[in-house]
């Protein structure tokens, strides 16, 4: 494990109004690894992911306690720009979310926000990230067509490419494969394992098997608390906590 973790989360609690969704959670996330955060419904997995890129800020009445450090610096530090932070921490949502514009414009959305609009270099980086997301061959002849015309799996790979176009350091994926066909799922999983050299990846897998396939480390959450975090093999072969063991063996979920 690399010396300095990408994220250090210290005593994080997250509230929606009066309701607590995360309870005193501490966790280090190493750089260039794939961390899966697993847990049954309403464990707070999505809330945790959205706290990292400060998307949780947008929810009216939401409140956070504790600290999240990225590269040693609080994400709430006054001289951290939230737009810059979000560019460094890309996010793929649970449902495919193409914006109502062309395939090309979707991918170029992020780069254009910071004025990287000159034709050739944008076109090149669009191609590069579409290749990384295993979508280039599907769409290279119809970049100008609406993104909505793609299949669900293609849309999700497009969203993945759109995040890669930000040239992020971290990629968050919230159940990116729920509702996708097996082929798209396999393609996304494959690109993930290739990409961890470059990125830190935090994923909420859509089931325990997926977590076992793709992750270096696994964190198990239950009703807002972190129960256990460990290397992939440890979690699945020698869980320390009975609840982890029950969950990964499918006794509840």
């Amino acid at each position: 494990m690399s010396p300095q973790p990408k994220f250090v989360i210290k005593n994080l609690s997250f509230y929606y109004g009066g309701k607590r969704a995360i309870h005193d959670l501490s966790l280090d996330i190493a750089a260039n690894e794939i961390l899966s955060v697993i847990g049954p419904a309403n464990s707070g997995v999505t809330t945790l992911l959205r706290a990292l890129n400060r998307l949780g800020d947008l929810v009216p009445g939401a409140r956070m306690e504790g600290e999240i450090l990225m590269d040693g610096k609080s994400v709430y530090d006054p001289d951290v720009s939230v737009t810059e932070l979000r560019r460094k921490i890309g996010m793929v949502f649970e449902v495919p979310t193409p914006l109502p514009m062309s395939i090309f414009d979707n991918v170029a959305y992020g780069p254009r926000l910071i004025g990287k609009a000159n034709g050739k270099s944008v076109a090149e980086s669009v191609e590069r990230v579409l290749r990384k997301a295993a979508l280039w061959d599907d769409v290279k002849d119809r970049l100008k067509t609406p993104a909505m015309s793609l299949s669900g799996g293609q849309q999700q790979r497009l969203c993945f490419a759109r995040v890669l176009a930000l040239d992020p350091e971290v990629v968050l994926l919230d159940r990116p494969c729920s509702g996708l066909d097996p082929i798209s799922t396999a393609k996304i999983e494959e690109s993930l394992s290739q990409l961890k050299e470059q990125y830190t990846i935090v994923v909420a897998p859509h089931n325990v098997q997926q977590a076992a396939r793709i992750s270096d480390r696994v964190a198990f959450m239950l009703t807002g608390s972190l129960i256990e975090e460990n290397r992939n093999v440890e979690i699945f072969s020698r869980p320390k906590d009975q609840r982890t063991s029950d969950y990964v063996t499918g006794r509840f979920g």
Partner: protein
Amino acid sequence: MRISPRAGERIVKVLIWAAAMLVMAVLVFIVAYILAKGLHVIDWRFLASAPSNMGRSGGISTTIIGTLMVTVTAVVIAAPLGIGTAFYLAEYTRENFVTKIIRFSAESLAGIPSIVYGLFGLIFFVVYLDMRWSVLSGGLTLALMILPTVIRTSEEAIKAVPYIYREVSFSLGATKWQTIIKAVFPSALRGIANGILLSVGRCIAETAAVILTAGSTLRMPTSLFSPTRTMAVHFYILAREGISMENAYGTAALLIILIFLINVVANTLINRFVAKSR
């Protein structure tokens, strides 16, 4: 006697169909009647020459220009104000006292008869601000009249844009303003444009409010400060004073054609834009 569900279904279907047909029939009848009475009056000379002898003879060119000037003035003023207000209400504030006041005012204003706007325009723009009967007075008055509609339809269109588009845009590093311009506005455009179109129609068709604020002269308007007579007012005066039913129907037919044309052209433009941004 009891009716079987299947029979009930059929009866309801027939009733609904009949209602729709009735509405269609009334509409078609009105349009057909006016076009039948007025279409033959319309030719190039009618469009291009000024009215003479109170409108008994000659064309209606000055009233066409007057209508366009007043309507454009109203829309140019009301559209940015109304769309801006709608974005403020929908994106920049939570529900609070101020938004409630704004929304309540807009809703109340929407229910006021147009003649009341005319009276207000007469007292405030024409007399108090000394803008006289003019294109500007008329345009400002109509702007006030359509503002509530523009606000409400725009706000609805903005709120109909899925919330996730905003989240996606933010998650890609956009600022609030970038999100509004690049992700929300294009998706809301069709709804916003529909509200504006509706308002254009109302401006073109308005009589009471314009007759009190823009006047009813038949001279060609040459600036924002000239008085003018719109087509709807012209039609009203021709019919009301019994000057020329013939020319009144001609004017009415042209009004219908104009509104139809504006709708077709605007929809084509919007479709093209939306197709490009989709």
